[in-house]
Each structure stands twice: as structure tokens, then as C-alpha cells.
């Protein structure tokens, strides 16, 4: 069973088999916690609603979003549109689905490969691992992939990416540690054009969103990409650690400002963290989740679809 924000989600059948055989960690998802709060309660009173609000907050959804969801529910209760506590579960599901759907965005179409995917995020969010998994996914779909080692700052980041490159069977364009990331990117894109590969995935150094000079470096990389290949980068993925709290919102905001984030990857959801801050991010910034990371293996990067996701949880 995979742990996600709302409980367990049914992955692709082949994955299910593998995951079933693997871990049997039963963890309380949001859905089951809401259930817990509601069990044995018939009357909707202020206390129950407050408890529900805390349940949402405990999943990192944030005070403002949680309050908003609960306020809407309170209104309906006041207007006597809700009679029974058991209705609250699906009401919350509806509210969340609305937010998740609102942020949906089609994948960018690239008529003339290579498609350039830039991966950004704060330190330790899981960028390099995500890239490794993404490369294997693309390779599995029969595409050719080239990796660009533009994290020239962190010690052994290039080596780490090279190991993933070997695993996925794709070339890694690199320079020396400390090299200008934009120069590495330039090289990689030239190579990708010459070799006619389908995808270039660009690893960048982790940076806290408050470091303005490092954020400016990302802007420069974007410009470089656009000069070599029209419309590049076609996708900019912000990798967000699933255990991150409310700071995730600020991360999303600042990275979007400087590097034009087009989608999110939520990692480390195989723990007990819910990554609920994405709900706030989707609500405020309209950024879709592209993938969720639920384990250490390459197959553990799953595509994200709001409808089936919510359905599997709230309509089971």
C-alpha cells in the first residue's frame, strides 16, 4: 500500500503486485483519520468541526486552506444543507478534489525534440534521485535520454548522477566541479541536438529560495536553454520534500518567480508525511503535481492524476 496525502492510492496493477509483496506498513492516511474523528458522532457541532480542522492541519495543509475548507462546510451546516456527520467525509473530499483539479495543466507538447526538463528545488529535496527515476521511466517508454550534470556545487553530485545514468543507460554531460552550470547546460543541449535525443533532464544544485544570487543563476540557466533550443526549458519541475511544512508554499512561490516552475514532484511519500502543503500550493499557485515519489526504486515514481486519486480514497 502506498501512503499518500489522503490515504492509500491504487497504483498501476503491475506496481500493486510489487508493492503488495513488499512492505505491509499500515499507516493512517488523512481519509482514515477523518473517519476516526467522525466515528460514533452524529451531531455536527463546533467541537467536531474544530477537530476536523486540526486533522487537516496535521497533514500540513496549512491553517489558511484548512480554515477555508471548514468555513465552506460550516456555511452549509448553518444553512442546514448537511444533516449528518457522515456526510462531512465526502464534503471534504469534494473540496480537496476541486483544488486539485483546478491546478491541472496538460503536459507541454514538444514538436521538435529534444524536450528539455529542468529539475529545481531546495537542498535535500530529492532532485538527483528523481532525475534518476525519471530517466529510467523515459527509457522504459522507449525514449532516448541525456542527463545534464549542472549541479557543479555539491560534493559528489556529478558522481551521484553518473551512477543513475549508468543504471538508466543514458549519457551524462558533465564538466568539472565548480564549473558554470549554464556552460554545462549549453554543452548538454548542443550534444542533445547533435545526437537527436528525445529528452534532456537537467540536474541543478539545491538552493534555498532566499539566496537571491543562486536564484539568479537559475534565471540565467533558463535563458541559456532558450537560446540553444526554442521554447526550452519545456518543463521545469520543482521537487518538494513530502515532509516539508508551510515553507513549501514559499519555495513554490520563489522558484516559480525565478525559474518558471510548470509542475511539482512530491517526494518521500513512503513515510508518514502527507505532503499536504501541496494543497495550499495548488490553491495559491495553480501548479499541478506531475509525479509522486513513494520509494527508493526507479519504479517508485508514479504519475499523479487527481480524479482517480481522490476517487480511490473517497469512493471506495
Amino acid at each position, binding site marked *: 500500500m502506498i501512503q499518500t496525502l489522503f490515504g492509500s492510492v491504487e497504483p498501476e496493477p503491475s506496481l500493486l503486485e510489487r508493492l503488495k509483496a513488499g512492505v505491509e506498513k499500515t499507516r493512517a492516511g488523512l481519509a482514515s483519520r477523518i473517519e476516526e474523528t467522525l466515528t460514533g458522532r452524529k451531531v455536527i457541532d463546533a467541537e467536531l468541526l474544530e477537530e476536523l480542522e486540526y486533522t487537516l492541519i496535521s497533514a500540513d495543509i496549512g491553517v489558511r486552506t484548512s480554515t477555508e475548507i471548514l468555513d465552506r462546510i460550516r456555511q452549509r451546516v448553518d444553512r442546514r444543507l448537511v444533516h449528518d456527520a457522515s456526510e462531512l467525509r465526502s464534503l471534504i473530499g469534494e473540496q480537496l478534489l476541486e483544488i486539485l483539479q483546478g491546478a491541472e495543466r496538460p503536459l507541454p507538447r514538444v514538436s521538435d525534440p529534444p524536450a528539455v526538463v529542468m529539475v529545481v528545488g531546495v537542498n535535500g529535496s530529492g532532485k538527483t534521485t528523481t532525475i534518476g527515476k525519471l530517466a529510467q521511466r523515459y527509457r522504459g517508454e522507449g525514449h532516448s535520454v541525456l542527463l545534464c550534470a549542472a549541479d557543479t556545487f555539491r560534493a559528489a553530485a556529478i558522481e551521484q548522477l553518473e551512477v543513475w545514468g549508468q543504471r538508466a543507460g543514458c549519457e551524462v554531460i558533465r564538466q568539472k566541479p565548480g564549473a558554470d552550470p549554464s556552460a554545462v547546460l549549453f554543452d548538454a543541449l548542443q550534444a542533445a541536438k547533435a545526437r537527436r535525443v528525445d529528452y534532456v533532464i537537467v540536474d541543478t544544485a539545491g538552493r534555498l529560495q532566499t539566496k537571491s544570487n543562486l536564484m539568479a543563476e537559475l534565471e540565467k540557466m533558463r535563458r541559456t536553454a532558450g537560446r540553444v533550443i526554442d521554447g526550452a526549458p519545456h518543463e521545469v519541475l520543482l521537487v518538494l520534500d513530502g515532509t516539508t511544512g508551510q515553507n513549501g508554499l514559499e519555495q513554490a512561490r520563489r522558484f516559480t518567480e525565478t525559474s518558471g516552475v510548470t509542475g511539482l514532484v512530491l517526494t518521500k511519500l513512503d*513515510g508518514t508525511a502527507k505532503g499536504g502543503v501541496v494543497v495550499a500550493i495548488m490553491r495559491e499557485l495553480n501548479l499541478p503535481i506531475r509525479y509522486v515519489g513513494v520509494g527508493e526504486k526507479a519504479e517508485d515514481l508514479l504519475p499523479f492524476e487527481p480524479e482517480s486519486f481522490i476517487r480511490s480514497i473517497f469512493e471506495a
Partner: protein
Amino acid sequence: MFDNLSEKLQRVFKNLRGEGKLTAENMESALREIRVALLEADVNFKVVKQLIEGVKSKAMGEEVLTSFSPSQQVIKIVRDEMIKVLGSHASKVRFANAPPSVMFLVGLQGSGKTTSTAKLGRWLSRNGHSPLLVSVDVYRPAAREQLRVLANELRLPVYTGEADDHQPLSLAKAAKREAMQTGRDVVLVDTAGRLHIDDELMVELSELKSSLSPVEILFVADAMTGQDAVKSAEAFHQRLGITGVILTKMDGDARGGAALSIRHVTGQPLKFVGVGEKPDALEPFHPDRVASRILGMGDVLSFIEKAEEAIDKKKAEEMQRKLIENEFTLEDFRDQIRQLKKLGPLESILGMMPQVGMFKELKNVKVDEQEITRVVAIIDSMTPKERANHMIINGSRRRRIARGSGTSVQEVNQLLKQYGQARKMMKEISGGMMGKKLGKLKLPFFG
């Protein structure tokens, strides 16, 4: 847009000001604001509940009638309650009676273990110890290589072991042996990142623990962690019995509520905070300072400590004399800038300042480090005579200085203007006119 906890609380207390005393009513709204602020700072909701209860009972109880103003009173109560959770004093690193002292760094993936290991190694060697570093992370690609590179940069000894040794236990044991043979008194063990629910890897850690008997098991936690911080910290503590916490990535704008949560559920002290990417960006954790910082009183003590380390006392006294006697030259101006730079990135310095008055304004200012380099270059391009007496710098001298420093005449003009203002203002300050004028000061590099 993104208010920090201290700003929020200040606003609360501002509203409270002017109302004679604490009533059930005005406390209620203040407490609600505090609750929201703490939750948005990622303090665990259960911890928040308890903290608020504590504040409430104190404020409503017998302590209400004091000579404090209501705002001062609430500030003090909230701060006291926070310090109560965080611990009342700074916690020291423990060492074994018989060296080497083995210390583990454990935590979730990406929390910053490897970087912290290197930083802690540097900190220990600066404080009279001789640590040996070893990575037993045989899982993440290039993890051991990362520690080796970092250690080499810091000239710290690192045990790399045999390349084909992929056993954490044998690596750690061999490192301990090596430490004994080479007279190293601390072995820092960088462990693989793992989820607290990953049974297999947690068993591995228990085994490491029982055969190496570490004096410190430091839980490395990301300051940006949300509500889940309590769960992972609790799990690590239950399985291993952690002895302390290192809170990383505090140089960002995360409000670090996780500090309160982790301390609350484990009862173990926070020992260090990571405040930057550089190897020296590790500071001992001071609970009272953090509580003060959260409350908007600024981390002034850390700042003073840093300043004392960086600033030459004699020079400072000399500067003071010059200021009073109006001999503050461009050369002194440059020295001052250089000393300021030694304190570290200006943004991190500003972060330590109380978020009030002039400093509040400065908080949102983007500090251009390059601007500092430019200013120094301009002054460097002057002749000693020009530095001693700026009045002689005429048009043609300005052009020459601009050419020499690779800047423009406008930039030279601007610098001279700023220098003039700084000089005038400092004279006024030393003349005892401190206060209002400070707010109007346009400092160089704060554009």
C-alpha cells in the same frame, strides 16, 4: 506576504497595547493569533495546544497584575513557555571517558547529514579535538564520495575503507580501530538517510549502536519539516535513544517550528543549527536566543559573538576616536566595509537583527554582495592622498578612478556621496544625536 512568527506576534501585541490590562476577551484574540502563527511556523498542533494552555493559565492566573504592560506581559509569558519547551540552557556535546568518542548522525533522507558531519568535524577540530570522519551510507550513490570530498576540502581525516566493503558495521568498526591507532579522539559516523518506518534500516542502526556504543546519537532534522517532524523524531528516539538534535537549513526563511516539536516529543536538546552552505555555518543552539528570535527580539547575542570574533578591538577603538575627531577617511570607510564582510553574508547578519524599526526595513532589502566588492575596488583605485582627503577628488580624478576600478563616474560619485552622508551621520551619532536620524540613513549597498 510571508510574515514570520515574530512579526505576527508583534502585531498581536500591538493590538493589545493601549488596553489597560489582560482580560479574558483580549487574551482570547491574542491567543488565537499566537495559535495560528505557531501552526504556520510548523509547530506540531499538539504542541501548540499545550503551549497555548500553558500561556493561558499563566496569563489568567495570579501573575496578571504586575507592573508590566499587557503586551510585555504576554511576550514574557509566551517566551518563558517556549523556553520551557526548548530547554533553559545551551547543551554541550558529550565525550566518552575513554576515547575515541563515537558519534552518529542519523535522520531522514536529505535532512543534511553528510554536510552536518563535515561541519561538525570542523567545529570539533576548531575546539581542540581530532575527529575522524566515516560514511557508512552504502546505499545512496556517491554518498561516501561526497563525505570524502568535503573532508578533504576541510583537511579533516576521513576513513574510506576498502572500496568493496559495503557493510556499514564493518566500515564503522574499522574506522574506530583506525581512530584508536592514529590517536583520534572522536569518530563521526555519517549514516544513510532512512525513513523512520523502514524497519530493516532501523535494525541496522540499532546494530551499529550496540556494537559501537556511541556517546552521541544526533538526529539531523530539516528546519523546514512540517507536522510530521514529531513522528520521525519520536520513532528515531524510540528505536535508538537519540541524545541531541542538529537543526539544518536555518539560513532559509523556514520558521523552524520543528525545533519546538522535536524537543517536545523527544525531550532531547537541540545542540546545533546549520545556517549556511559553508563548512563553518554551524552554530551551537541557544534555546533562549531562538525563543527571543521567534518573538522578534532578534538574535542579538549571536550577532555580538560573531562581531567579536571578526572585529579587531583595537581597530574599533581607533575608529571610534577618528569618528569623534572627524578624521574618518575613505580608507577607514573601506576597512569598515571589509570588517563587515568578515561577519559573513549580510543577509544572514540582518536575519539576526531584531525585526523592529530600521532593521525591519532592512529585512526586505536585497543585499548586493557585488556592490561591496565594487565599493572596495573604487576605493582601492584611489591614491593614498585621495583616500585621506576626499575633497581633492575632482572630475578628472573621478574619471581615472572609474577607469581603474572598472566602474563608471556615476558610481564613483555615488560612493563619495554615501561616504559623505555616513561621515556626517556618524559625527552626529558620536555627538549624541542617536535616534531619529538613523531611520533616514541610506546605507551603502542597501539599494
